[in-house]
């Protein structure tokens, strides 16, 4: 992500300490009513380049925590914070109001100004202005939604983040595979790589600049690291046999990978990306794969069937004896830790169905979050509050999100035909 947003200026500092609205989230049943008033427009063209209010409305709605009201219900439609009338909004029954306008300041320069109000408290929570160009307008709108969301819930918003995923489309006898990146809401999808041979296991670098993935081009598996901005890529592992399951270390310098060798004994290795030196972490004859780092860099969690069926183990990243982590159920695989380090997501076989489950690492309890038969590839959003995963809808592979407490669920529209699979949520963008 580039530096185009420039300097963010806090317009009207909140009097006293920042207040977080006390909004109770009881699940999809009672999302909080809010109003996002259509933004004003001051510029050359008859219409504003982007309906910013709609982007913010959609973001808040999709979070499952808010119910933005329709425009017809609004008794007033101010486009400047100074014009707010709390009486009108109390009457309508919303708890918070967003007012804003887009102002053109140059040929391709704009300013997004917006204010957030607490209706019950009859006060402004904050006012903000952000510079944007036509190209960065959507990002700016998402950033505004993030700020509003965080102010109202105390949770960091992820509306400006991205998702990488793999698609597979049948073309006659063959399949065409693509690795794609899009905004978290599916908009602006961009193809990173396309191939007649399978693509698997995409992984984001911590700075979001690179993706690692497995490609079967040439009818053998190799691990690539590709720079998003340039499309340049290099092969980091192409040993005989299996090369799979790449995942970046928190400092971005290493990958945990699975290597099988000529004899097909899958094991976990740590690979230094620059020197290509490998350190072997497991030697068991079992299938040891799907390694992933803990956010503090100390442990690598992985799948192993050394006890008969797949279970999750962890080993110190510097080496040691693996210890078993999961004991509930006959099948636990594909571990992923939440960025705050508190939870472990996995694929869990629950009475014959493969579902996404999350374990609280302190309490060691398991919560089954999804409801399908073939759910897989869980990935946490960078705020640790939402998971995205792949599921099946009829014959198609589609993506779904669920909140970490299981209360809010969202189906994502699948692309034009074919399968969508292996979603990976990006880190927070670094500017």
């Amino acid at each position, binding site marked *: 992500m580039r530096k185009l947003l420039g300097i963010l200026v806090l317009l009207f500092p909140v009097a006293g300490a920042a207040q977080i609205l006390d909004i109770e989230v009881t699940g999809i049943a009672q999302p909080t009513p809010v109003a996002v008033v259509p933004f004003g427009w001051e510029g050359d063209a008859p219409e504003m380049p982007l309906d910013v209010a709609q982007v913010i409305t959609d973001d808040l709605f999709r979070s499952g925590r808010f119910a933005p009201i329709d425009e017809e219900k609004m008794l007033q439609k101010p486009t400047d914070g100074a014009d707010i009338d709390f009486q009108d909004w109390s009457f309508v029954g919303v708890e918070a109001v967003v007012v804003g306008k887009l102002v053109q300041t140059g040929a391709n320069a704009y300013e997004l100004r917006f204010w957030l109000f607490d209706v019950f408290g009859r006060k402004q929570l904050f006012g903000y202005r952000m510079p944007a160009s036509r190209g960065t307008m959507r990002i700016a709108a998402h950033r505004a939604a993030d700020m509003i969301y965080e102010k109202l819930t105390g949770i960091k918003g992820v509306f400006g983040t991205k998702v990488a995923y793999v698609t597979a489309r049948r073309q006659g006898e063959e399949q065409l595979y693509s690795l794609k990146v899009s905004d978290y809401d599916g908009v602006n999808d961009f193809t990173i790589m396309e191939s007649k041979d*399978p693509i698997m296991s995409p992984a984001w670098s911590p700075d979001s600049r690179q993706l690692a993935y497995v490609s079967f081009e040439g009818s053998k598996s190799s691990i690539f690291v590709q720079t998003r901005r340039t499309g340049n890529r290099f092969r980091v592992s192409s040993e005989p046999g299996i090369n799979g399951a790449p995942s970046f270390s928190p400092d971005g310098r290493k990958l945990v990978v699975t290597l099988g060798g000529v004899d*097909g004994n899958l094991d976990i290795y740590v690979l230094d990306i620059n020197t290509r030196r490998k350190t072997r972490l497991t030697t068991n004859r079992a299938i040891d794969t799907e390694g992933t780092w803990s956010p503090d860099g100390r442990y690598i969690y992985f*799948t192993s*069937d050394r006890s008969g069926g797949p279970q999750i183990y962890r080993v110190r990243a510097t080496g040691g004896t693996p210890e078993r982590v999961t004991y509930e159920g006959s099948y636990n695989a594909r571990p992923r830790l939440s960025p705050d380090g508190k939870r472990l997501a996995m*694929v869990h076989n629950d009475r014959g169905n493969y579902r996404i489950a999350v374990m609280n690492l302190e309490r060691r309890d398991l919560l089954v979050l999804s409801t399908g*038969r073939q759910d897989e590839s869980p990935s946490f959003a960078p705020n640790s509050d939402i998971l995205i995963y792949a599921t099946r809808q009829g*014959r198609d592979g589609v993506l779904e999100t669920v909140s970490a407490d299981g209360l809010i669920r969202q189906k994502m529209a699948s692309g034009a035909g074919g399968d969508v699979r292996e979603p990976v949520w990006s880190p927070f963008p670094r500017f």
Partner: protein
Amino acid sequence: MMSYFKLFALAAISFLLAGCPSSPNVPDPEPTDTAYGDDAGATTDGMGDGSYGGGEYLDDPTAGELAMVIYFDFDSSEVRAADQDVVSRHAMQLGDNPNSRVRLEGHADERGSREYNIGLGERRAQAVRQMLMIQGVSAAQISTVSFGEERPVAFGSSEEDYAQNRRVEFKYTN
């Protein structure tokens, strides 16, 4: 006269030695002595005692074809008993042609996590590889790759679809 008989006997004997080829569905003809061989092996009617002995084996059109894929049971990487013959024939073929190379492509059904399924596919490919090597095939002639669940031949989610996807394919590259 004598030479004709010798020639004929030789022909009959060499025919018997060539025998019916390796069609597994067709049982070998009963062992006979040369007198019976007069009738070129497949003969039928005209048995003096009146018992029914009619019939003639037809050629099996697939007898020569070597299966290029074998299938596996759920959660298993054991080569089925019925397929051991197939593997042996591949072993023979590789043994007879030291320059030939085979790539064993292992596959799994779609259930469960993808990278773990790569492991399952590889286990199956390795089981076949070990069997070939035990039968004398050089390691240099064999490579393995696992596609896990990524390259199904059956795209549904029924047990039949799953059974068709749990397989190892023999891909000769030379």
